[in-house]
């Protein structure tokens, strides 16, 4: 039901994100969803009023590459995803190393 959605394998993520960048889109949001024991990671991009999504599904403990070399402004979304869901992301340009959210309750929540 999500329009313009492409579901891909996580090892093809960077190539797909580069393609999105070449098509002129910019980052809108990244979020993770815990489904049973897996995590879905949804990347959303916008160009004017057009929205495009890329989704990967990963198992706990999987390391995924950062997209901040392609979209530098994605660092907050990636740090947030790491802090709240415990998803390991390699190569973030501004890596807060778990310190973006200073919650009294220990993260990740999900």
């Amino acid at each position: 039901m999500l329009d313009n959605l492409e579901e891909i394998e996580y090892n093809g993520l960077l190539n797909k994100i580069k393609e999105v960048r070449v098509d002129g889109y910019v980052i809108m949001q990244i979020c993770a969803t815990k489904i049973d024991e897996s995590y879905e990671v949804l990347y959303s991009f916008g160009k004017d009023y057009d929205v495009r999504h890329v989704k990967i599904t990963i198992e706990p403990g999987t390391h995924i590459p950062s997209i901040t070399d392609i979209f530098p402004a994605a660092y907050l979304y990636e740090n947030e995803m790491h802090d709240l869901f415990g998803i390991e992301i390699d190569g973030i340009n501004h890596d807060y190393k778990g310190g973006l959210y200073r919650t009294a309750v220990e993260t990740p929540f999900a």
Partner: protein
Amino acid sequence: MASKRSVIPFGPQHPVLPEPIHIDLITEDEKVVEAVPSIGFVHRGLEHLVTKKDFGEMVYVAERICGICSFGHGYGYVNAVEHIMGIEPTQRAKYIRTLLFELSRMHSHILWLGLMADAFGFESLFMETWKHRERVLDMLEWATGGRVIFSIMRLGGLRKDVPDEILKSFLPELDKIEEGIRACEKAFLSDPAVLSRLKGVGYLSKEDAISLGCEGPFLRASGVARDNRMRGYAAYKDVDFDIITSDDGDSYGRCYVRIQEIYQSASIIRQCIEKIPDEGIYVPIKGFPNGEYMTVIEQPRGGACYYVHASGKKFIERMRVRTPTFANIPALAKTLQGCDVADVPILVVTIDPCISCTER
């Protein structure tokens, strides 16, 4: 000889900040060469509550994300769930939603004008602008019964109708607000002392605004004509309005865009009152949502994304709110590079930061 670099912590407690955000300012003498923002002081885990609250009750949690744009948060969540469930609200409900949305925008922008005046030390201008904000809050109270949290939104429409007599009573109030804001506008956009704090301060180019994912008046003040209301949700496709932009790209441009958007909101509200049909306000809903959808709306501070992932149960799997302030933080960090330390508070205020939205 190279200047010595120092790190100046800005926030989380600062006189211009109603809410906590922290920025490490790396400075050389009086110039900021880099700014590293950090958040997370008041994270409440409201998104996570979606797994513990009935999907209908979650409307009220969504509204409580923020006290300024609470209506928009309720709307964003409701719109996404309605889309998943294939519910089409009545036209009257859509018009009332649009009208309340625009009252919230007026409230937010006038509040921002006051905070801006306070930030550059113009106390009487701060009080004058907030006087007009009271009128907007009164109108919201007449329509919904609440001044901060309205609880009028529900899946399928609205919890209560707004009678035509109340809607008509808004017209003279809008005239008075516009008259008051026109008087304040002279100070914000023409006063030499104010201009010295706004003109040329915190420039953000059009290219940077786009590539850094900037949103709302912050984006439009850099000359980018993008306003998510043009997507035509609620009753926006039935009203006439143009996208307000500025080519200044600085704090003055951001001030100009927000002031013009106050008048624009008044115009949209008048059109809604004129065109609103007389019919029901609620469509019954059946079953549970099953599917995923992301809706994008224009909150007062900019575009906001509401992603809902449901699997046919009472509890939704995931609600994600990407708020405009969250999207504007990388652009704020860019804007702070090269500015004077004395201008940092003004620049932080020019993005109209809402930390409770950002933290959720």
